[in-house]
């Protein structure tokens, strides 16, 4: 028997496999394909204080080994989540983490305060890195001062586990990681999508209504792995790794680079059952390599 469990701060995960926000809905959408209880946890859609319509269609285009999206945080607001969604998913036997976004610091704080009393929600993931909203979003994630101020404000208001999701669209991601660590984050997750763009040369128009969008999928993986490795070496708090994980091998790669847990995003669109396959792969990998605890995989890359 191998021990797949890992901890992110006080948050206990039965295995290191989480789903990435915005790609797995509220979990329910995938319940026909995966036993949600088998996941380490799932991170629900980006949630804001008020209802958001998101960006106009078209919001997606496939690119080589990846996709650009410009959803723009469409969601019905935190109260809707608490009243309508939470009662339906609260009994799942894996962690449910809410991804939180805001246009200003006060928004973030209020959303976290509203989520704090929910027993099942033991952690939030703070999205300071969304490239698809004009106000706030990535703006907080691209300067140390911005990242620090939003983290600090939430820390004062929210006592449970706080994971801060970092933007890769910066010159030195380790600086931002250190800033949020100092400001009280329990963990960081990286990466969010990379700012990208694609033009349809037949029509000479951009594919996305917003012209630019967030790039995800296998094409970003080597950059994300590099960033996870750099950040894991720069901070003491746990790092959650993501970006282009398509299968179990990719997940192990992130752990070897220093990730305590991983998130699976775009891969769910290709194989809606991929997450449980990744759990199985990690277990099998550990057996084959004589590794007893998943914790021993974290940062185990040989030099």
């Amino acid at each position, binding site marked *: 028997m191998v021990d797949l469990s890992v901890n992110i701060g006080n948050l206990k995960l039965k295995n290191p496999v989480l789903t990435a926000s915005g790609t797995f809905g509220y979990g329910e959408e*995938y319940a026909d394909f995966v036993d949600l209880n088998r996941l380490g946890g799932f991170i629900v859609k980006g949630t804001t204080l008020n209802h958001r319509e998101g960006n106009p269609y078209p919001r*997606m285009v496939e690119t080589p080994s990846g996709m650009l999206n410009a959803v723009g945080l469409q969601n019905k607001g935190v109260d809707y989540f608490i009243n309508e969604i939470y009662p339906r998913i609260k009994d799942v036997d894996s962690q449910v983490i809410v991804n939180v976004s805001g246009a200003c610091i006060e928004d973030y704080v209020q959303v976290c305060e509203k989520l704090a009393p929910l027993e099942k929600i033991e952690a939030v993931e703070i999205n300071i890195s969304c490239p698809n909203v004009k106000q706030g979003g990535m703006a907080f994630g691209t300067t140390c001062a911005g990242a620090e101020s939003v983290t600090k404000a939430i820390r004062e208001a929210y006592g449970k586990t706080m994971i801060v999701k970092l933007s890769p669209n910066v010159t030195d991601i380790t600086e931002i990681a250190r800033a949020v660590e100092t400001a009280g984050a329990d963990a960081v997750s990286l990466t969010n999508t990379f700012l990208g763009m694609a033009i349809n040369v037949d029509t000479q128009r951009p594919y996305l209504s917003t012209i630019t969008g967030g790039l995800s999928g296998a094409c970003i993986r080597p950059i994300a792995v590099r960033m996870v490795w750099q950040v894991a070496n720069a901070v003491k708090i746990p790092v959650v790794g993501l970006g282009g994980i398509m299968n179990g091998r990719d997940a192990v790669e992130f752990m070897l680079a220093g990730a305590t847990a991983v998130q699976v995003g775009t891969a769910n669109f290709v194989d*809606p059952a991929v997450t449980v396959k990744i759990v199985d792969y990690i277990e099998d990998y550990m057996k084959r390599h004589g590794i007893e605890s998943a914790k021993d995989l974290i940062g185990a890359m040989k030099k």
Partner: protein
Amino acid sequence: MLKYIFCSFVITLYINQSMKKYISDFIVKTNERLHANYCLLKLKPQEGKLPEILPGQFCQVEIKNSKNTFLRRPISVNYVDYDNDLLWLLVRKAGEGTSALMDIKEGDILNLVYPMGNGFSVPADKGKRLLLIGGGVGVAPLLYFGEVLKKAGVEVNFLLGARSKNDLLELDEFYKRGNVYLSTEDGSEGEKGFVTTHSVLKEKWDSISCCGPMPMMKAVAKYAVENGVDCEVSLENVMACGVGACLCCVEDTADHGNVCVCKEGPVFNINRLKW
């Protein structure tokens, strides 16, 4: 009105609760080229039997032999042959993914996530006059819909339009299930012009179900509004997940703002759309 709300409530519950989705491997039994740019695939589940599928629902098709694409492609259910356990897909070559799908060989395995989305409404009143309008490859879901209507005892009328004779697909199959009216832009078959200029539209219709290119569906919707005909259209917004999780495929509606075409659609009553 109350009755209508109650009915749609029951239908919604029914769809949400009973339409389980599957990830299944299918064996390609036949791949028939229909002219240069279309093919008809007949697929058999590798294990078990086909579940209940509603007309208008679609499949998310994994295309492994496509070098430069990785996302699944949404393809409508063209026909369900329950007697032989065959699922038909009618495919038009649009880009890399669909080209690769056209090259698939008999005996190959195709992985589908299905059945996705809602379906066309089957009228409760058998006396209603229904016109099913299809354009180009948009005729695909209408064949199975026609079959379901015929079995339900409803008179089926198809108005099928295309650029030219060669783009009119599966005509023999449509003739088996109802009255067929044809139009081509170049006049090579049926009436010359667009579906919306076809003389059959001068008749009185109770409702229209339509699938085809966007300009055609908009023209049909305009006709329906002007003539007080109830009308449903099947949208083809670009999709990623197909299960209502990513919010990439949204259509702006009058009642609920942006909604997922993959989950709440692809079939919409035009009075919900902001066209």
